[in-house]
């Protein structure tokens, strides 16, 4: 994976990867719980129908229809869950000592943006809600002077540490650029 990342970001010889960030796993777990609830629905409906209308399961027309509908439902839910996983897994941010790379994944499309650290103007951390406080995840907003004015690291783990480190890296990179590329 490391080799892939190096190749993917076209890593320069002086460049070090400081963070490889993804949304906190709790975000994916929330989706997974919803998925389990949706999976349980047909089983509950089956239980209800078995106890209230058992004749339906003997019917030569309604039973095949219900089976096909249930099959289509399960396949759809399964595919949507797979796409949700891809969306979670392929959405990431890489912070190096020179730049930030934002890889945004949407269904069947992908956007990759880059930001030089010395262009960072401000970094803000936002942690909302009980779960975010409990599991220490939140959103980091990076205000820039570049073409894309704001970079957002959504629901990443330990956002305060990441924000602090980014500010430190931005300061070092800024000094380096102000000195005309001399350390």
């Amino acid at each position, binding site marked *: 994976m490391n080799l892939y990342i190096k190749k993917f970001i076209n890593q320069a010889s002086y460049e070090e990867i400081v963070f490889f960030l993804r949304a906190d796993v709790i975000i994916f777990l929330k989706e997974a719980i919803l998925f389990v609830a949706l999976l349980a629905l047909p089983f509950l409906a089956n239980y209800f129908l078995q106890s209230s209308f058992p*004749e339906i399961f003997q019917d030569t027309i309604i039973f095949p229809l219900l089976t096909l509908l249930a099959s289509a439902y399960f*396949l759809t839910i399964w595919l949507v869950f797979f796409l949700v996983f891809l969306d979670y897994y392929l959405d990431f941010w890489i912070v190096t000592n020179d730049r930030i790379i934002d890889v945004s994944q949407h269904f069947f499309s*992908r956007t990759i943006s880059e930001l030089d650290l010395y262009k960072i103007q401000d970094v803000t951390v936002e942690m909302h809600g009980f779960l975010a406080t409990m599991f220490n995840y939140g959103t980091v907003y990076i205000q820039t002077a570049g073409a894309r004015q704001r970079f957002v690291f959504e629901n990443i783990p330990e956002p305060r540490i990441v924000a602090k480190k980014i500010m430190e890296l931005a300061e070092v990179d800024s000094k380096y650029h102000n000195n005309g590329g001399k350390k």
Partner: protein
Amino acid sequence: MSIGIFLIAYYIFLAVFIVFSILAVYHLANFIPPSSMAFFTTYIFLAGVALVLFVSWRELQGVDWTQALSFFSNSYESLY
């Protein structure tokens, strides 16, 4: 009209499902390197699909798809 119409509708759904599945797996293969995670998720996804299709096929064995679609009379007879 026979109840085979349900099966045709299901096959149309399956065709759309297969197209989206291929696109999703292609997307995964294209954007992450061959890794245990990529293989594992693809395997789990395909295993889930196979399981659903197998259970559906097993449940629908013995269904006469040529019988006429007489929805109301049939359900009326069987329910009462």
